[in-house]
């Protein structure tokens, strides 16, 4: 961990902020345009009879795409240190439920699989580059991708035998994956001058590329 954890609303001195290059803005604009123009897809949406808590809990764990992205959120937060340790894992489920509500309502949302694959790549790349993003930008990135993950969960919710228990299951599983990511980041983040975290980030990027190729093919 590069920063310290403080009580309540005390701000930890922020690390030097990286200037966002123009090419990154261009890429981000391109990615958003890509999402808006691609066809609707059903990312990791299980059909058939489903139970309650166990089905919901199992959903993020049974799909490595969700698992890697959520793990990366925790790891990235721990790598950045300070308030980000908990800010990112707190933001993710809150925005994820917006995507979940869209999924429950059956709103057609294009490019879910692409969104999830890109979330893995972007979050993995941020860890690999040890990017100390400005707080607002990190939250924006996490919030943007959380919608895609939430949609995939929410689309399944009406099919569950006990939707309330299903919702509890997938939110708790998501949160626990974040906590594991934070724990790995805090415990092993400093090993070999942070190379362990960065290597994990690299592996996450590779996995994300695999999912991206699958989503496009």
């Amino acid at each position, binding site marked *: 961990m590069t920063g310290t954890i403080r009580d*309540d609303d005390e701000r930890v001195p922020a690390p030097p902020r990286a200037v966002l290059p123009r090419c990154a803005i261009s890429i981000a604009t391109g990615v958003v345009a890509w999402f808006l123009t691609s066809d609707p897809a059903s990312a990791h949406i299980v059909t058939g009879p489903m139970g*309650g808590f166990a089905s919901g809990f199992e959903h993020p764990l049974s799909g490595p795409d969700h698992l890697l992205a959520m793990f990366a959120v925790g790891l990235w937060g721990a790598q950045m240190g300070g308030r980000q340790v908990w800010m990112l894992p707190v933001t993710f489920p809150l925005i994820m439920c917006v995507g*979940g509500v869209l999924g429950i309502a*059956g709103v057609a949302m294009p490019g879910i699989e692409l969104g999830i694959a890109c979330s893995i790549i972007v979050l993995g790349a941020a860890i690999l580059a040890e990017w100390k993003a400005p707080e607002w930008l990190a939250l924006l990135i996490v919030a943007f991708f959380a919608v895609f993950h939430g949609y995939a969960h929410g689309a399944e919710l009406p099919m569950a035998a006990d939707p309330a228990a299903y919702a509890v299951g997938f939110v708790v599983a998501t949160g626990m994956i974040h906590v594991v990511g934070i724990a790995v980041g805090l415990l092993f983040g400093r090993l070999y001058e942070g190379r362990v975290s960065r290597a994990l980030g690299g592996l996450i990027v590779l996995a994300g590329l695999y999912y991206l190729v699958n989503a496009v093919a």
Partner: protein
Amino acid sequence: MPVSRSKRRRKSPTGNAAQRRVGAAAMPTSRRSAAKRRSVFAERILADDVHTLTPAILLFLCAPLLVLLSQALRHTYSFGELGFLLPFTVYDVALATLGLGVLCAGLASMRRFAIVVTVFCGTLVVCLFRFVEVWQAFFLPHDLDTQVYLVTPIAVGLTGVALWLPQRVRFPAALVLAVLLGADYTLFIGLQDYFNDLDTFGIGALAACAWILAAPAFLLRHFKRPWLTIAGRILGSWLVAIELLIFAFAKIPITPPTG
């Protein structure tokens, strides 16, 4: 008058640390450095007063062991046992009660913690064993019997929000939530068929509810407050997300997913 062991510990909080340092000096270098790492780790995470840590761990392990035993052994369930298992299966309210426990763990004094637990258990006892009277007095005259499904999302969401509150208002918020969650649990327990004639079912359920609130909170009191604040905020976000999803599911007309 001889001083008891616990009193001695309370009077000299540095005594154990001094003994550990003396003990560590006699160790070989590798073990000494390992012990030092452990003590630094403990200092960062654990609170200063940890003399009740062992009973807290034992209390915390009680219910999981009982549940495991109950599920592992092939047997006919008793009504008390069924009552004990029921609160663990109401996942959202159990998680919210756990959230209230995290809130309690961060309270300034043990006395306030005990008051919240007492209010929670008191609400449960009164509402459970006077269930029909409470239902007739509160729900039926106000036509609330058709809105009962909203009690859980409201209680769960408010618990999530309360975990973000500043320290000074946490105690009154915890008291309000203790009543709300106690009443909410009552609905799940009291509306069970088993409950009508069997007090053992209610007593089992009451024991489980009390454990869900008190045991994790008692254990968490041994951790430093900043860690509890972080845990509380993370858990709070989960509870708010769950509440929004349940509320959306109850209110949004469901259409099959596209794609």
